[in-house]
């Protein structure tokens, strides 16, 4: 993490150096051809193993319950049906809501987290105020604590948020922020690690740029919003993709916080659906396809950021 910017550009840049290209132009020996074939055989075999579960998921989701239980199995559905999808949207009735909830929670958490983390990162990177180093040290110190340490106390804290969910001013009597979007989102919108990453990036922005704006009479927020944030696009993009993916896929926190079906996220809804429909495999496969498509689309659009983001924020 010596230089976030440097690493980002490395991850984004083309990996083939000129010397390697020159090396390739040498005549290929027979041994080279054999090695290349072995390499492809291994890669293709690995790719098939990686893809097979997805292929089977998609295939089974278009089959009748009876067909997947009769051997030999058919990868191409014998009697294709979309019944699993229609009944998923029809009978349970909640999957549309779960999709909406997952999107809402992931988008709102990501936007809020990016905004608050950047604000704090700016103060830590570019301002000289009393208490800065020990406050920043305090944030860094909490990175030592695994995230799951806060789930139990936060469950109880949410339960006792005053004036919400039937609670009185002392925070008792109701369920507080439990089983609400706020309960899912608010505890997650400050990430010490996000602050750390963004701050490292902001430190590399030259102070002269900010001083010039200050001389022109720009307010601190204006400098932050119009000068610093646009320059931080790479780190923000990588962070956004990663945070979105994390909260879209998150299961543990929704499982603890949410209790009524209309508040479930897709992951939670699907997981509890497994418990209720242990053997309705074709139905479960259809639900799994529905839950995978959005992340797949986001991944294909932002693939570059995914890869740089994962090498940057791999810790989360």
């Amino acid at each position, binding site marked *: *993490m*010596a230089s976030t910017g440097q690493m980002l550009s*490395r*991850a984004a840049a083309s*990996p083939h150096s000129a*010397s*390697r290209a020159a090396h390739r132009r040498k005549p290929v020996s027979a041994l080279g051809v054999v090695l*290349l074939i072995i*390499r492809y055989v291994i*890669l293709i075999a*690995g790719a098939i193993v*990686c*893809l097979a*579960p997805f292929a*089977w*998921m998609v295939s089974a989701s278009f089959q009748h319950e009876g067909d997947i239980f009769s051997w030999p*199995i058919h990868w191409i559905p014998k009697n294709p049906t979309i019944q699993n999808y229609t009944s998923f949207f029809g009978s349970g009735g909640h999957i549309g809501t779960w999709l909406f909830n997952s999107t809402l929670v992931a988008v709102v958490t990501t936007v809020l987290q990016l905004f*608050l983390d950047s604000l*704090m990162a700016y*103060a830590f990177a570019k*301002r000289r*105020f*009393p208490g800065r180093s020990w*406050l920043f040290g*305090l944030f860094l110190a909490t*990175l*030592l*604590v*695994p995230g*799951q*340490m*806060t*789930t*139990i*106390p936060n*469950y*109880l*804290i949410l*339960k006792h948020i005053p004036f919400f969910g039937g609670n009185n001013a002392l925070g008792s009597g109701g369920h507080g922020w439990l089983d609400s979007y706020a309960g899912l989102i608010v505890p997650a*919108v*400050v990430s*010490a690690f996000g602050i750390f990453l963004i701050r*490292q990036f902001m430190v590399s922005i030259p102070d002269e740029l900010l001083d010039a704006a200050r001389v022109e009479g720009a*307010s601190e927020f204006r400098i932050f919003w119009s000068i610093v944030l646009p320059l931080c696009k790479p780190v923000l993009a990588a962070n956004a993709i990663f945070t979105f993916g994390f909260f879209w*896929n998150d*299961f*543990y926190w929704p*499982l603890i916080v949410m209790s009524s079906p209309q508040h479930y996220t*897709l*992951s939670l809804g*699907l997981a509890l659906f*497994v418990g209720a429909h242990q053997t309705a495999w074709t139905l479960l496969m259809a639900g*799994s396809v529905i839950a*995978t498509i959005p992340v797949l689309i986001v*991944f294909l659009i932002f693939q570059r950021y*995914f*890869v740089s983001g*994962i090498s940057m924020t*791999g*810790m989360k």
Partner: protein
Amino acid sequence: MATHEVAAPARARRRRTVRQDMRREWSAYAFLSPGLILFTIFTLAALAFSFYLSFHSWSIIESYKPFVGMQNYKDALSDPDLGQAVINTGYFTIGSIPLTMAAGLIIALMLNQQIWGRAIFRAIFYLPVITPMVVSSIVWKFIYNGDYGILNYYLQNIGLVHHPISWLSDPNLAMPAVIIMSVWQNLGFAMVIYLAGLQSIPQSYYEAARVDGANSVQQLLRITIPLLAPTTLFLVVTSVIGSFQVFTQIYIMTNGGPVGRTNTIMYFIYQNAFQFFKMGYASALSVLLMLMLGVFTILQLRIYRPGSGGDL
């Protein structure tokens, strides 16, 4: 005495300048305050509360929540179920990490060259990483199904087994099954990290080695693998922390069974907190988990510290 007389006004002056600095930099505090308030409640207070809980017998269904001192910790250390969970978690960690990293490294080495389909292969191997863990767990539960799972189908077809195997309900096979699924899920992550590590090795090292007559195996063992050490350390540390907190696969595929053979520490904490409502005991377990992970988390922070030489 003399120094004291000099020091007192100096201290006062310093206090005054601190106050002046604070007034001048007020907007920095304004930038910090929204996040700081949330951080204070949901991280700092939560952590303090977590320790407080661990010294109490705290059930959310009972109003009497007495202080019990170290009792929760004593109970935990003599709890055979926790012992089993620690063993299971260790089994999962040792079973999954070397496999994941070796597979990730081999694929990264193969993809670290200008070969046809490089981007496609990389995307395919990375696909399981972005797939929701809940989905992967459901699909693999179906694949492992003891009656109609396709794993049994193919194993029987090639004659490896004669009767379908109940992978997830066999005490000896359940954990290996969960491990294989987790390797499938995570090897793309190791691959991407190793690819980034490989790209940071200067080509000139390999050119020099070739001039000295080193073959490709020697180059791999003497240049590539030693220079990937920081990457490997990073992966080991993050993977250990991740696998000590494994939960979703267990919740969906096995529920900790059969006979507790896949009950991991996180699942055990979850059960105690949110099924048995023993918040105090579960908090003590969380503190113990944190201590177990302590060495790895400190290592992790060192890797991330600017200027520590850690590249990732």
